[in-house]
């Protein structure tokens, strides 16, 4: 995320003749904003009854979009709403714009009445639809993603066979790994790493959290599950994941 963003910032700075310093200065603010918006996507997704994979797709769309676009140009919450809408189409869980707008309205204004069906509502809906097209263009129609969820499922099944039955039943490894994976969508990790690596890291982290040791054969267990991953890669992804949890503390 860092590299393309700063490039974009530099470019806008150069083009607009604006001071670079100001633009670069709020890059950490941007990260915070993205974190908040993703939290918004995930929560809205839950309220709309979306399954895990469409929610994951919505977040991935969002991160992918802002890899090349700048927060100064686009309103992140509008992009997020359109991402949710688009993810529903991509993953065959069609959502209605009206539901999305109503749920988002409640999110921003918990106490207020639902929006009236007047021209303002229609204009808002048009914005969501137009922005969807913009996302499609920006991503060049590359909107289907391979998610780590299925890999994690396979890895979990394999690792369970390697472990002592009691160790498995005592510790909520599967739940933790799954939660870690879901949380990872708060940050751009999902579009920066291969899904296999992400799934493996979630499992790795879950096992370490509970101090569960996997018996070691000739190779490490994670080398058996996924051949092209290195320890540094796992550690890098892990650091990024943990930074997200730090971010959570900062963004409350």
């Amino acid at each position: 995320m860092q590299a393309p963003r700063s490039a974009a910032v530099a470019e806008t700075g150069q083009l607009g003749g604006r001071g670079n310093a100001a633009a670069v200065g709020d890059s950490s603010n941007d990260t915070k904003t993205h974190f908040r918006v993703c939290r918004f996507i995930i929560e809205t997704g839950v309220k709309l009854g979306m399954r895990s994979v469409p929610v994951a797709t919505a977040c991935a769309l969002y991160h992918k979009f802002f890899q090349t676009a700048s927060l100064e140009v686009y309103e992140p919450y509008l992009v997020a709403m359109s991402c949710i809408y688009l993810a529903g189409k991509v993953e065959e869980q069609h959502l209605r714009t009206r539901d999305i707008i109503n749920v988002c309205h409640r999110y921003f204004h918990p106490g207020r009445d639902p929006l009236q069906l007047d021209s303002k509502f229609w204009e808002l809906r048009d914005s969501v639809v137009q922005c969807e097209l913009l996302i499609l263009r920006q991503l060049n129609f590359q909107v289907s993603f391979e998610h780590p969820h299925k890999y994690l499922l396979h890895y979990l099944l394999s690792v369970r066979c390697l472990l002592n039955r009691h160790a498995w039943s005592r510790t909520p490894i599967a739940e933790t790994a799954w939660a870690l994976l879901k949380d990872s969508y708060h940050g751009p990790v999902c579009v920066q790493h291969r899904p296999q690596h992400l799934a493996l890291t979630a499992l790795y982290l879950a096992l370490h959290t509970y101090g569960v040791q996997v018996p070691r054969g000739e190779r490490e267990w994670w080398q058996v599950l996924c051949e092209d991953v290195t320890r540094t890669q796992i550690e890098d992804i892990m650091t990024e994941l943990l930074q997200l949890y730090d971010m959570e503390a900062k963004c409350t």
Partner: protein
Amino acid sequence: MDRMRKIKRQLSLTLRGGSSGEKSLNETIGSQDAGAHSDSEAMPGGGSASLRGSVRGAGGSFSMHSLLQSYSSALRRPRSLGRSLSSYLNHTTRLEIVHEDVKMGSDGESDQASATSSDEVHSPVRVRLRNNPGRKISTEDINKRLSLPADIRLPDGYLEKFSLNSPLFDKPLSRRLRRVSLSEIGFGKLETYVKLDKLGEGTYATVYKGRSKLTDNLVALKEIRLEHEEGAPCTAIREVSLLKDLKHANIVTLHDIIHTQKSLTLVFEYLDKDLKQYLDDCGNCIHMHNVKLFLFQLLRGLNYCHRRKVLHRDLKPQNLLINDRGELKLADFGLARAKSIPTKTYSNEVVTLWYRPPDILLGSTDYSTQIDMWGVGCIFYEMATGRPLFPGSTVEEELHFIFKLLGTPTEETWPGITSNEEFISYNYPRYRADCLHNHTPRLDNDGVDLLSKLLQFEGKKRISADEAMRHSYFQCLGERVLTLPDTTSIFALQDIQLEKETGMRTTSLSDSELLQRCLRFRHTLGTYNCSSAPSQRQEAPSVPSVPVPFPTVNIYFVLLTVIKQKCPIPFYSHDFKWFKLLSLVV
């Protein structure tokens, strides 16, 4: 190790108190409102207009800037959308949505082909050019550089333009610059394509035949109307996102995408007809060798899709396109999807009824690549016999057709079927399986064997596309067809050639062919015999040669009737020159 310890410490800190995502989410909903406000306020408003002005002032010498700048201004424009939402976020009481006319430009993230429309684009690197005079750039260079489709031949004019003043070959090509240059050539612009005839209309799209001004090739323009309420149809989104990744000789190529405000136009390669038309045109009787070639190509394209975990889900003769070389290509991926999780349930209204497998008809929702293989069987039969295999109009009728031919399934032929509630409720009579041989007289034993392997009730028993390609039915095509690169047509092999369809209606018949066909036609009518053409009489010795005086008026009359009634006689075609024929016969 030190790093690991640090990570662990961090982990224990963050995980303590079970702060994994969802919980924390709920805790923070309350504070969200404030967050949203501060975000939108932090963004500078209305800066873009002044920026644009200042750069424009710099003028033409920095045209690279102006090029990029028009790019950025284009990017900037949709800001109005954003602003409308943020204003909504800030003051919902006084909702003020400034809905500027957002012009959707062309091609992917490009920027407004229209904003940078040709006269505004100056050569950005004219200075640099002097150091680099007279460089020769070939089409291949450009194609490679821009990763254009391989079959694109750019006209010479474009090449000259490039070798004179193009940023393309002097600068490292960023993704963005690539787009700008693509749109400079004419990609993603509606003006580049000339609409010719309308080819067909679907629920959400209209297909036109067109011509690309860029390459002079024929193209098919699929114009998708953008519904104001629903935005881009999900079939279109799926079709584009899948087709962008599918590059195969037996899959239709997507050349370009054009965005306008009201529509999205997909530019495909143009193929003359679909399999349905082909069948009609050759009198529902395809040469058996060609049946084999078509089936093989269908399997080859499908195998590629299935390997990449894409299901087509809507196979039917109308979706298989054929060109005059005999190349068959899969089209219409609107219902296809990337099959990401095999155990997932899918919506079950997907395949046209005639080509829909029985397990899906009986409500199965967990299907996989085998869903397409049943359809392949049905199409195989249709090519071999000229009529659809199971032309049911309702689910019940469709199943009835299937069971009548293949036998009503029992617990032996389809384990678990007797507990399927839908199957029980239809209460079909107990048919015995019919012999497929009796229905497909033109098919040899291998062909019938392959057909029966495709028409299996249970998905898991159906032969896969990969296995089917290795079936002994295709043995005569040789081994090499199996090892061709993905993007090579099977006709690249010399020993593979399309046979001429005997009954094909063509528009350019030679005179002698016309005469022969006319005579054959007359034999089938059995009324007249031509005494003045002894050589032709030998062609059909089975017809009794009773010499009958041959009145000119009568054949004239017969032909006119034939033409008027559009009788599907093989030789009939739109510009059939009956007078030519008359002059020959009489």
